[in-house]
């Protein structure tokens, strides 16, 4: 009996690596600490009522952001472990197998569990406030999206200590990811972790399209909408067309592994190339999904801190929408070398180059917005300023890669690694950091410390170039991606060492960001104006943090940058164009435990499928169905906030002005 348990445990838990034992201990300690703190301060009820069951978009957004910062830590540690292993030739720090797992989890976590939730967090916090709405279109679904993401991410991360991590690369090409080549459970963790959170992302896409199209404040025409909301719209349109493909691809891979189907296998008539095509039909739009909202953030930041209207508003809108469409016609450029033939390659090379045109338009729009503006160099503006040259270089190396014949040299080399990190860090990460510090006061009612923020910025920015510029040259010297070891005679040592130093600089930058947040919480200065940056759009017209119902009376919009125009009129002593509206009872959705419970059921089911334990999978799926039925049968899902309460809240919030 005891032997049986021992044998089970040695297979069930990941064993044999001191790094992982260390992680086991720290995970255990962190969990005990959390439970103790919550119990000691009697916070369980608070956690349940105020956070786990909330359907308030602002709180859902904050939970997204917290989760994504934790994931940034995990993905960042993965990156530094990799950089340490290849800092110099012949380092025996990680075994090849462990290295494979780490580059796989690094990629998956950074894109799907860091960039996506950070993006969704900002969507949630900003979009309803920016378009003058009281919540998103479907608050219940919104909360469900978050919990699906959360439990999907937890399932994926669990593979680290239980069962073993996936190790077939972040997109897990078949046939490597098939049972024949990856017999362990890691690949199943990959499938279910991404599948569960992917369903959440799809729902978010639908939710925000409806919110933006149907719930804008009275008078706000589409072409007066703030640019961030436009970028969210273009990103969400891309989501709803791309994510179903991911759902199908992962489901088919699962059928191959679980039921012995032959979609992507080498035998039985399967076609592995079809996997590569399908995954990139989702994968390429996916990178535009994460970068488009960053473009929106830069547009807001650059206009606010140049004190000018955004240059070329219409061209910006068209550029974003064109990028959304073109993103579906470029997927094949990820595998020019895989034998599609010259004509097919030529088509995809040209579509890829075309993307550079709308992107170039945007760059000029941002530059002209700054031209003759009164620029203030706050942290969000610094991220934006650093983004522009970084993205231009990254974009140009992208155009180099799109030249199909040349790509036979660049393909899967460190040149490519440097390129996509440059657009993803320089574009996405810088963008979301800018957004985070820009909207932080709106979320919490106080600014982040500028001095520490600037330290973090410079460490990230310098660290970035030190880390990735050498990698272009390593790629040209023939170093391919995913090598876990190389010998002295390759001559790659010095550049790799420099690159690793850059990686650690960015790591220190991250620590500064954490310090910045902690320091700002401790020494915060409350922002009583609700408009600390002298902003232009509606979210700055209400107190920070925004009350539950956001707007006591819905704003009436007359202009693009309506709040700014309103302030200008006031300054010039002109009467406001707005007529005061009477406060009425406000319709709000009730909190619900179903999203949390349903996602937990998905988690249980996913875990069951990973280990082929039907006694987990079947109850889990039944739980999901019951949750759906319970929701369908509940009719008492809303309530009204009475006028008196709204008046009292408003007086308390604005009384301090």
């Amino acid at each position: 009996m005891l032997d049986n348990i021992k044998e089970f445990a040695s297979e069930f838990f990941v064993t044999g690596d001191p790094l992982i034992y260390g992680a086991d201990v720290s995970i255990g300690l962190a969990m005990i600490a959390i439970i103790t703190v919550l119990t000691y301060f009697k916070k369980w009820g608070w956690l349940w009522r105020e956070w786990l069951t909330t359907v308030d978009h602002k709180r859902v957004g904050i939970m997204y952001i917290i989760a994504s910062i934790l994931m940034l830590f995990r993905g960042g540690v993965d990156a530094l472990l990799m950089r340490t292993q290849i800092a110099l030739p012949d380092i025996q720090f990680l075994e090849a197998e462990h290295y494979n797992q780490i580059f796989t989890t690094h990629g998956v976590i950074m894109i799907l569990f860091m960039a996506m939730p950070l993006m969704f967090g900002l969507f949630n916090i900003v979009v309803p406030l920016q378009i003058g709405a009281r919540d998103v279109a479907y608050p219940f679904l919104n909360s469900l999206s978050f919990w699906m993401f959360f439990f999907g991410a937890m399932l994926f991360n669990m593979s680290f200590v239980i069962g073993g991590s996936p190790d077939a690369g972040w997109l897990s090409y078949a046939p490597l990811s098939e049972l024949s080549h990856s017999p362990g459970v890691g690949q199943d963790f990959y499938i279910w972790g991404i599948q569960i959170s992917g369903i959440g992302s799809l729902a978010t896409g639908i939710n925000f399209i409806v919110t933006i199209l149907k719930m804008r404040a009275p008078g706000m025409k589409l072409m007066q909408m703030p640019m961030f909301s436009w970028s969210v719209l273009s990103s969400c349109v891309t989501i709803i067309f791309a994510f179903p493909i991911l759902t199908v691809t992962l489901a088919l891979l699962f059928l191959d592994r679980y039921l012995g189907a032959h979609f992507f296998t080498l035998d039985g008539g399967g076609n592995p190339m079809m996997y590569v095509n399908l995954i990139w039909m989702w994968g390429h739009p996916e990178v535009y999904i994460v970068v488009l909202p960053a473009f929106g953030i830069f547009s807001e930041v650059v206009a606010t801190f140049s004190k000018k209207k955004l240059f070329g508003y219409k061209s910006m809108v068209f550029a974003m929408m064109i990028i959304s469409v073109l993103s579906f016609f470029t997927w094949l450029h990820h595998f020019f070398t895989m034998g599609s033939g010259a004509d097919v390659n030529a088509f995809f090379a040209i579509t890829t180059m075309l993307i550079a045109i709308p992107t170039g338009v945007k760059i000029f729009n941002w530059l002209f917005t700054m031209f003759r503006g009164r620029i203030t160099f706050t942290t969000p503006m610094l991220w934006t300023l650093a983004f522009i040259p970084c993205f231009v270089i990254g974009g140009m190396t992208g155009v180099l890669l799109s030249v199909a014949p040349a790509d036979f040299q660049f393909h899967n080399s460190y040149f490519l690694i440097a390129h996509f990190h440059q657009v993803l860090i320089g574009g996405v990460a810088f963008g979301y950091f800018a957004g985070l510090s820009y909207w932080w006061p709106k979320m919490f009612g106080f600014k982040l410390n500028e001095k520490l923020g600037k330290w973090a910025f410079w460490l990230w920015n310098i660290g970035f170039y030190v880390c990735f510029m050498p990698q272009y040259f390593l790629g040209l010297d023939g170093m391919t991606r995913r090598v876990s070891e190389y010998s002295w005679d390759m001559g790659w040592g010095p550049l790799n060492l420099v690159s690793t130093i850059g990686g650690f600089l960015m790591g220190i930058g991250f620590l500064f960001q954490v310090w910045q947040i902690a320091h700002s919480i401790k020494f915060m200065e409350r922002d009583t104006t609700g408009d600390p940056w002298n902003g232009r759009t509606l979210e700055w017209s209400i107190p920070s943090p925004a009350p539950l119902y956001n707007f006591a009376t819905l704003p009436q919009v007359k202009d693009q940058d309506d709040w700014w125009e309103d302030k200008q009129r006031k300054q010039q002593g002109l009467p406001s164009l707005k007529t005061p509206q009477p406060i009425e009872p406000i319709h709000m959705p009730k909190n619900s435990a179903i999203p949390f419970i349903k996602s937990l059921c998905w988690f249980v089911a996913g875990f069951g499928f990973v280990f082929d334990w039907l006694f987990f999978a079947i109850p889990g799926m039944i739980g999901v169905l019951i949750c759906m039925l319970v929701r369908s049968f509940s009719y008492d899902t809303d309530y009204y906030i009475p006028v008196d309460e709204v008046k009292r809240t408003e007086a308390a919030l604005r009384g301090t002005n």
Partner: protein
Amino acid sequence: MQERKMRLSPREAAHTEVGHGGHSAGHHGHDEHHEHEHESLKTFGFWLFLMTDCILFASLFACYLVLHGNTNGGPTAEELFEMPGVIAETFILLTSSFTSGLAVLAMHKKNLKGLITWLAVTVLLGASFIYLEVDEFLKMVHEGATISTSAFLSSFFTLVGTHGLHVSLGLCWMIGLIFQLKRHGITPVTMRKVNVISLYWHFLDVVWIFVFTIVYMMGVM
């Protein structure tokens, strides 16, 4: 007015309505209009969901088209498919789409009994469709044509099975809805739910026409 209302947030639209009806309409009228807008918002979201489902089926069809020739020495479409059963399935599903339309018509006439009856007929037709499909699948498995026999059969079972799963879920949902209609009658909320499920049902019908044409007809031709 309808056009304009669609663009406004539900709350604002409700507000305009109250303005028209005068404040004496009071809280109740306000509530009802609000509900109406809220429901149209949900229907719009469901249209978007159907678009994503379209992409899902499109991907599965693409896989089927790529793989349908790869029979791996196993049975081919011509040898396996028995058209009489499939044609029966097709007519049953098309009829169920018609009866779900009749249910919606009954709802617009505020005829609760007719609505529930036609929904029940739809459920029965849908269930017979599923019965025939499962029977067809079981026969194939009996003949040794399983999901793991060849890439052709993997993609066949997955595509047709995904459609069948959609129909089955729709059945559960429709039965749940019949109970809700009995309890709540025809209200803006239940009306939206009936509209949405009939949309879903027609959508599955359209997908089936593609399955019938691309998988079965082209398979035996």
